[in-house]
């Protein structure tokens, strides 16, 4: 079969939906090729919107994973309809109500990467690049990591990932995947005001996480998703209402422990995992960052990146 390639937006929605329905569509996401299948219109619409700049292939010889979002083959197809996520024909978690099907696609891919891609050191953290250097934002819940990540991604930083930071286990180089950004509850409204020219998937209510939606990654971060870069900063952000911005150095041993706690395959990698964390922390400056306004955050991180640039240029 001849291989058709291009970016998703070059396909008409009708053709796109047909390829998706027939399971022929393979999305290129970072260095992964993900073959997708779904007959659900809501899933087709969401992927078409969120991945419009991503390259695709039709029925390639090799795909890293085969995923599907579909109605379960039981009564729940009709009675209080549900959707389930399948990877290689296997269902890793329980089905969700049908209206969450588009979000399920994203969460399913997160699970798949965390469960199978041990050629990466996978950290539950956002990562972004500027001037060839990577900022890692590990994520204790409620830290406002995704909000901060969305703001930075549309203001001078290149999005690597909002959920899963991927480091090569050989040399700790960070790998971009430029996937949609997951936002919850009030963060959605804040970013809607802050980033006016972005594409969104429809909001879903009443999930375990509350109200959720996904924001399409900026086009530039998708175009450059194969350009890797080395980590330079590890910053633990914390949103505190009405706080003035404060960026303070934090202890490296403590950062090692906190980072390991956020690493998803730390114990699976064993000794390699331990060595990776220590190498990463050796390599990076570590900070705590407290903020309440996104404008302050942008300024702080810009100063961090530019002062580094000046030092590097010998000023």
């Amino acid at each position, binding site marked *: 079969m001849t291989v058709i390639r291009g970016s998703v937006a070059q396909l008409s929605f009708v053709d796109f939906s047909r390829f998706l329905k027939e399971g022929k569509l393979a999305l290129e996401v970072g260095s992964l*090729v993900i073959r997708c299948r779904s007959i659900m219109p809501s899933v087709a619409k969401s992927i078409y919107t969120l991945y419009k700049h991503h390259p695709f292939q039709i029925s390639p*010889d*090799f*795909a*890293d994973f*085969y995923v599907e979002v579909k109605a379960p083959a039981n*009564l*729940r197809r009709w*009675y*209080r309809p*549900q959707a389930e996520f399948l990877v*290689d*024909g*296997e269902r890793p978690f*329980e*089905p969700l*109500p049908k209206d969450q099907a588009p979000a399920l696609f994203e969460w399913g891919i997160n699970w798949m990467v965390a469960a*199978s*891609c*041990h*050629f990466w050191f996978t950290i539950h953290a956002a990562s972004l690049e500027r001037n060839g250097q990577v900022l890692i934002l590990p994520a204790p819940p409620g830290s406002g990591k995704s909000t901060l990540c969305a703001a930075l991604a549309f203001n001078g930083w290149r999005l690597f990932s909002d959920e899963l930071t991927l480091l090569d286990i050989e040399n700790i180089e960070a790998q971009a995947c430029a996937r949609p950004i997951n936002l919850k509850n009030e963060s959605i409204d804040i970013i809607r005001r802050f980033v006016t020219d972005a594409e969104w998937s429809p909001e879903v209510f009443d999930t375990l996480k509350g109200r959720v939606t996904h924001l399409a990654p900026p086009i530039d971060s998708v175009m450059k998703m194969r350009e890797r870069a080395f980590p330079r900063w590890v910053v633990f952000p914390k949103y505190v209402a009405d706080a003035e911005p404060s960026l303070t150095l934090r202890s490296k041993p403590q950062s090692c422990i906190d980072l390991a706690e956020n690493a998803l395959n730390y*114990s*699976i*990698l*064993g000794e*390699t995992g331990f060595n990776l964390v220590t190498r990463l922390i050796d390599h990076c400056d570590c900070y705590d960052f407290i903020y309440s306004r996104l404008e302050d955050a942008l300024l702080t991180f810009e100063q961090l990146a530019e002062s580094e640039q000046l030092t590097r240029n010998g000023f």
Partner: protein
Amino acid sequence: MACSLNTSLLLDVIQFPGNLRNLPLDSWDKLLRLARASNLIGRIAESVHDQNMLAFLPSKVRPHIIAARILSLHQRQAIQWEIRHLDDALRKLDIPKVLLKGAAYTINDLDAARGRLYGDVDLLVPRSHLAKAEAALMLKGWSVGNIDAYDQRYYRQWMHEIPPMIHCQRGSALDLHHNILPLTALNSPNIDLFFQNAIPSRVSGFAVLAHEDMVLHSAIHFFYESELRNGLRDLIDLNFLINQFLKEDQNFWTLLAERAYITGLSWPLLLAMSMLIDMLEMKIPENVYDNVKKAAKLDVLSGVLLPKIYLQALQSSHPLDNNFISAMSRFAIYIRGHYLRMPVKLLFPHLARKAVGRLIKANNRKK
């Protein structure tokens, strides 16, 4: 080979890893998917490692093999770590403690353990000491999870194991058995025979089943399961176990057949042998096969149909290989697996209750 093209590709490269060389990219695509779905990807990764082939793999394939080997080595280490914790919890109990299946293969470093992926640790203790063992484990952090009264009763009254115990910190799962077959099963064997023949493992305090019993247990496990999700992996286990024991003792087939006769387990052995012949082209001495067949006393219909049904169902349930006949066969085995474990009088109320329970549970989650 009596199986689909894709399943036979998987079985072929596991038996003859040299055939992984020069495999075209589209075959790798299918192989990795099937191997992942049948829990055999770790085995493929071990073969690649043994043959020093990593550098020669297509660049798209290499990372997946690296990841699979990392995972299987981790699981192997995790099982050994878990056994140390078990020893710590149970050392003071002077009772037979027999590790089963994956944990047994790992602890004695059998070929069958290489690249194997595990779900849990299985431990067999005499029924008379079950409560003591459970209490000792609870003191060290294991507990039976949050399951309803019906499921508690299902396990404790009818099954050969208590509900799975989960460790509160490590999250690891332990299946504590007091028999190798459910109490309600047809032909439930006398478990004392298995305790009597158990042999010491490489870790003091723990035993493993005698070689013949280990094979019989693997065969039983295979045919009493209602879901053949790990069917291909179990078949590969049998293959590695038998081949290794044959190397150590040329008479192994005869010993195995005799032991099956004594324990009343000739019929699962017979079915296992026919699967091994059909799917892996294993060579089994004719007189052994005939003796086991005679002892199995399967009626004519079962003797013809059962091997065919299992053969169909064993095609990986992966969408690549799934078809109507294998799906129907799998359904037949679901019913049969339950039927073997429970008399009909108990079985139908049980399945009905499970079906309704699933609907109710799903609703509650929605609220």
